[in-house]
C-alpha cells in the first residue's frame, strides 16, 4: 500500500477555463477550494500565496476565489502553511478552514488533531485538507541557485517551473529550458530524506501530476470528508474525470515513484538509527510493512 489508503483513484481536471490556464496541472486543488468556498463547505483557505519576491511563496489566508487563484501553480520551495492556520482561526475567525498541504504538513495537522496538546479549539476547524504530491522540497536559495546556474535564466523572468519526464522544466515568455532532475540532487533540504510519504497519505483528497498526462492530475480520494466534497464537486461539474491509465505512465509510475521514495527514506532512517541519531519513524526491522509511514 505505497499510495496509502484511498477510496477512489482517478484522473481529474478543473472544467473552468481560467483555472486551467493558471494551474500547474489539472487545477484540482484550486478548483476544489473555489468550489468548497462557493458551497460554504469552507469559509477560507490557507494556501501558498504570492509574496513580494518572485517565486517565494507566503502562507496566506485566502478569503475569495481570486485569492485562491492567485496561489495557483506549484512553487518548488518552502511555504510553512501550517503556521498560518493559527491566523486563519484566531485573526480571521474562520470556523471551517480549507488548507493545501504537502505530505509533511498534512502529518503535522493530523498529529495536532489526534494530540492537540497546546492547540486550543483548532483541531475541529480543519474542514478540508487537500494534499499535494511531493518528492522533496528546496530551500529558496537552492532554487534560485540552480535555476540561474543550471538553466541560465534570470529568476525574475521565469513564468513556470515544472517537474516531469525526469527533468526540471523552466518556462520563460519565449523559451523552455530543461535539465535532468538528477542535477537538482544536493539542493533539496535534508529533512526530506527521511520522508516516507509521496502522496499525502493522510489528506482528505490528494492530487499531483505523477501518473497523469499533461494538464490532468492524478487524484486520490481518501477520507469520508474528502469523498463527500469530491463527489459534490464532480456532480456540480467543477471537476471532470477520466480513468487513470493502469500502465507504465499511469498508476504504475505513481506506484513505482512512491515505492522508491519510501525505499530511499527507509535506507536513511535505518542508517540514522544505526548511528544513534533521532528519527521519529520505526526502523525496517521494527515494523510489519517496511514501507509504511510509521
Amino acid at each position, binding site marked *: 500500500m505505497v499510495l*496509502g*489508503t484511498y477510496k477512489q483513484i482517478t484522473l481529474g481536471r478543473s472544467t473552468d477555463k481560467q483555472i486551467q490556464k493558471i494551474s500547474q496541472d489539472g487545477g484540482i486543488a484550486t478548483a476544489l477550494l473555489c468550489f468548497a468556498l462557493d458551497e460554504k463547505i469552507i469559509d477560507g483557505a490557507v494556501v501558498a500565496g504570492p509574496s513580494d519576491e518572485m517565486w517565494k511563496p507566503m*502562507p496566506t489566508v485566502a478569503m475569495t476565489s481570486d485569492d485562491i487563484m492567485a496561489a495557483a501553480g506549484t512553487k518548488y*520551495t*518552502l511555504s*510553512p*502553511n*501550517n*503556521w*498560518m*492556520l*493559527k491566523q486563519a482561526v484566531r485573526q480571521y475567525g474562520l470556523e471551517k478552514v480549507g488548507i493545501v*498541504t*504537502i505530505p*509533511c*504538513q498534512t*502529518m*503535522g*495537522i*493530523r*498529529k*495536532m*488533531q*489526534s*494530540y*492537540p*496538546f*497546546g*492547540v*486550543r*479549539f*483548532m*483541531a*475541529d476547524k480543519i474542514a478540508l485538507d487537500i494534499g499535494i504530491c511531493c518528492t522533496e*522540497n528546496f*530551500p*529558496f*536559495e537552492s532554487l534560485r541557485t540552480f535555476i540561474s546556474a543550471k538553466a541560465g535564466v534570470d529568476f525574475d523572468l521565469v513564468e513556470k517551473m515544472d517537474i516531469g519526464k525526469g527533468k526540471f522544466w523552466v518556462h520563460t515568455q519565449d523559451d523552455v529550458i530543461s535539465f535532468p532532475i538528477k542535477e537538482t540532487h544536493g539542493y533539496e*533540504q*535534508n*529533512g*526530506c*530524506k*527521511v*520522508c516516507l510519504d509521496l502522496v499525502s*497519505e*493522510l489528506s482528505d483528497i490528494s492530487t499531483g501530476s505523477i501518473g497523469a498526462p499533461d494538464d490532468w492530475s492524478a487524484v486520490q480520494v*481518501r*477520507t*469520508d470528508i474528502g469523498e463527500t466534497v469530491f463527489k459534490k464537486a464532480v456532480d456540480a461539474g467543477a471537476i471532470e474525470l477520466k480513468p487513470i491509465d493502469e500502465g507504465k505512465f499511469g498508476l504504475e509510475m505513481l506506484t513505482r515513484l512512491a515505492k522508491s521514495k519510501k525505499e530511499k527514506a527507509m535506507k536513511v532512517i535505518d542508517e540514522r538509527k544505526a548511528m544513534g*541519531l*533521532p*528519527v*521519529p*519513524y520505526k526502523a525496517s526491522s521494527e515494523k510489519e510493512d517496511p514501507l*509504511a*509511514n*510509521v
Partner: protein
Amino acid sequence: MIARIKEFLGMEAQPKEVASEQEVEKVAEEKAKPRIGYIHLSGCTGDVMSLSENYDILAPLLTEMVDIVYGQTLADVWEMPEMDVALVEGSVCLQDEHSVKELMEAREKAGLVVALGSCAATGCFTRYSRGGQQANPNHESFVPIADLIKVDAALPGCPPSPEIIAKTVVAVINGDMDYLQPMIDLAGYTEAGGSDLQYKVVNQALCIGCGTCAMACQTRALDMTSGRPELNEDRCVKCGVCYIQCPRSWWPADRINKDLGL
C-alpha cells in the same frame, strides 16, 4: 453517556461489535468510581480552567463517573485522602515547605500522579523566577514536579487544550493505554524550551519547515524564517509545546490512521 462523549470527541474506543453502548455503560457502572484529587501548586489556575471548559461534555462524567475527593476549589476537604489519580497543576517551589509536603503526600496517597500543564511538567514560565518578590521573597526556585517525585504521565501545554484533557480523561476511563503512551513518555520531558526545535529537530536534519511548531506556540514566540523556526527567547515560556507538536519529534501513526478511519 460514554458513547456520547466519544462521539463528541470523535473517538472510538472499542469496535462496535465487541462492546455495545449498553455494555460499555454497564462496565462503567460496575467499576468503582476513580477517586481524583487536584493538587494546586505554583500555577496560574489556567490548567483547571482549561479542564473546566469541557463542562458541557464532562459534567456528567465528573459528577457521575469519578469522585473528586480532594482539591482546593473542587472539594471541601482538609485532609488529603487516598486517591486513584492526583492531577497536579503548577511547579513546586523548593522554598515552600507546604508545597513540597503536599506534593510528597500526593505521591504517597495517589496511585497515579499526572502533571497537568507545563508548569508541573516542565516548569514552564515559573522557570524564570528570580525570587525577591513581595510576600515571599525567599520563594526563588520553581521546578517541575518530576524533579522531586516519580510522575506517571504528563499533559504539557500552557495551558493544555480543553480537547487534550477531555481525550485523556476518556482514554483513562476506557483504559486506552495506546492513546496514553505519549503522555507516559512525556513524564520524562522536564527540560523543555523552544531551543529543543533547534537542537533536536533542525540540527538533526529533521526539520522540513512545515510550520506546525509556530502554529502551536502558545505565546507566538516562533516565526518561520527561510523555512525554519526562529525563536524569540523573550517570548518563550519553555512549555515544550512546539517540540511536542512537531511531526518530526514523535509520530503517532496508528492513532492518526484510526482517527481518520484510514
